[in-house]
């Protein structure tokens, strides 16, 4: 667990969250006991390979795990002091949009093609504000202006297919933030955008955060984006958070061999290499997880113990901890020689 924080500061507290997907053939442990905290105005990055449970974590926080196959089987999600897992489906509708919201990965598909932007935006705004037509209209214009859409009055009557990807993602952002939630989950919001647009979008999110004190959970597999956007980072592997801490600590002293490998696999401009670094092997199937450490089969430091028992969590600095048997109390820093933190691919 992270260091104890004052209750007023913490907006979201997740403990021992487990979300499983039950298929006929097997139980897929998509999220298998993760814990983290989020403070107001903070940005937490969740990093990991595809299929490690990042998106399922996000959907769990909104209680939108695909049913009936998926289910949150254990844990607590305390949002604004209330455990949302105890809430009824009706009560959840007041939570979604107003307290926690999400920006989806692909702007091309996240807007309904048969309704205008204005219609979809007003619908979102209407959930928190019941007002007459003209004031809703001006609210919609304001919402678009906030996400830097030019000539918002004219854009309201556009259909999604008449807009560019970057523009659509701004609209999705405006919809997600329309009811001023305290927490926004951004699930790889820039992966589908052009590189030049990516940076603009990230800047926009930062600006809005500075203005509103929004807490952001930033899901990505791009360490460059993490370096640019996040205050803290949680590294996920096979359904668990294997290391988390301040971005500074993680980049300068990555503790878990998987984190080290991930950071190492980001190509560096100043170094010319014959082959890009990659981690050998595949992550385990979430439906068939090994007994011990899930990274052990791919880990260069793995011992017998690693295969037998899941490692306990080591506290390395304030708020920096990692699950690895190779770590012990007098661990001092990165074992990887000449390690240079990446400067960011999005810039």
């Amino acid at each position, binding site marked *: 667990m992270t260091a104890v924080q004052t209750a007023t500061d913490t907006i979201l507290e997740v403990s021992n969250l487990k979300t499983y997907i039950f298929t006929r053939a097997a139980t897929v442990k998509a999220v298998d006991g993760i814990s983290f905290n989020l403070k107001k105005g903070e940005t937490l990055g969740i990093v990991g390979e595809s299929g490690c449970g990042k998106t399922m974590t996000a959907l769990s926080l909104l209680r939108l795990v695909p049913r009936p196959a998926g289910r949150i089987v254990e844990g607590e999600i305390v949002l604004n002091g209330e455990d949302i897992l105890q809430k009824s489906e009706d009560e959840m*509708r007041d939570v979604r949009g107003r307290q926690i919201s999400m920006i989806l990965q692909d702007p091309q598909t996240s807007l309904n093609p048969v309704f205008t932007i204005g219609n979809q935006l007003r619908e979102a705004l209407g959930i928190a504000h019941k007002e007459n037509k003209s004031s809703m209209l001006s609210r919609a214009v304001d919402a678009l202006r906030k996400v830097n859409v030019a000539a918002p009055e004219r854009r309201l009557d556009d259909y999604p297919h008449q807009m560019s990807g970057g523009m659509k993602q701004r609209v999705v952002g405006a919809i997600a933030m329309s009811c001023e939630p305290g927490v926004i989950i951004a699930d790889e919001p820039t992966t589908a955008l052009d590189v030049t647009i990516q940076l603009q979008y990230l800047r926009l999110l930062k600006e809005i955060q500075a203005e509103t004190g929004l807490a952001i959970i930033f899901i990505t597999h791009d360490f460059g984006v993490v370096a640019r956007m996040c205050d803290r980072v949680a590294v996920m592997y096979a359904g668990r958070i294997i290391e988390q801490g301040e971005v500074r600590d993680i980049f300068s002293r990555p503790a878990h061999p998987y984190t080290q490998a991930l950071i190492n696999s980001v190509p560096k401009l100043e170094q010319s290499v014959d082959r890009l670094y990659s981690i050998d092997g595949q992550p385990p199937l979430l439906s068939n997880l090994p007994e011990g450490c899930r990274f052990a089969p791919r880990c260069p430091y793995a011992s017998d113990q690693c295969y037998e028992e899941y490692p306990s969590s080591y506290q390395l600095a304030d708020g920096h901890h990692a699950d690895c048997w190779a770590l012990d109390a007098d661990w001092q820093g990165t074992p990887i020689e000449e390690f240079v933190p990446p400067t960011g691919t999005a810039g």
Partner: protein
Amino acid sequence: MQAYILRRVAQGILAIFVICTVTFALARVSGDPLNVLLPEEASEEQIALIKAEWGLDKPIHMQYLQYLGKLFRGDLGEAIAWPNSTATELIVQRLPNTVKLSALALIVSGVIAFPVGVLVAIKKDTPFDYVGKLFAILGQSAPTFAVGLILMWIFAVQLNFFPTSGSGGVEYIILPALALGYYNVAALMRLTRSSMLEVLDTEYVKLARIKGVPEWKVVWKHCFRNALIVPLTYFGLIGAVLITGSVVIETVFAWPGLGHLVIKAILFRDYVVVQAVVLLFATAFVIINIMVDVLYAYIDPRIRYT
């Protein structure tokens, strides 16, 4: 939008022209009309007389032009098997009956299929869904005449709710409309179900839920209109299904519509009437399709601009 409609209408006119040509050709290759018009022992003079009377002595392309010329003036020709009536008169007599039957069948299928399709989609993998699927499979696999006969046996013979066949008051149209509509219910419902399931899985539905839209609104606003696009296309095909279906059902229930007429015309080898009815069916098919395309463009704005 206007340009789009104009383009579709122009395509439709071209299609109808092609249909005229094909029906004309098919009527000629399906046998010598003289065999029908004359007894076998007819003399050369009689043959020549009849040929001249029906314009069959002219070369085929002249006959074709003549046929087109008459069509253009709205003349479908003299019926062979019905003395003293034109094909147009015969059609005008029967058309209202077929339109009534098809319209009612269409309403029956739409009213049942869309809501039930949505329901079984949102209740996927529950008993609702299984019953719905069974209902659909039955409707799709049972031939319309069998459904018609079963309905007739249950509701007319056993329960005596409706007359078995014929025409008259409202009670006569209900069983044939149900039998004709049921086939489409099944297909439409399955289409609605599968396209609803697809739409329920999209990102924009996820976003709608994320922003806190109530579930009924997610289903009926965000999903239904998108999910309607596929089954609506099928509505165009329903035109054909209703037409072919009505031929069978009208015969089963002795309902005096166009289907009934065309079956009689075929039995009497009246190629003029067959040709006229087939042309009418085909034209109706083209018009229904154009209407569906326009509706389709109205529902899905992306189509209007391409």
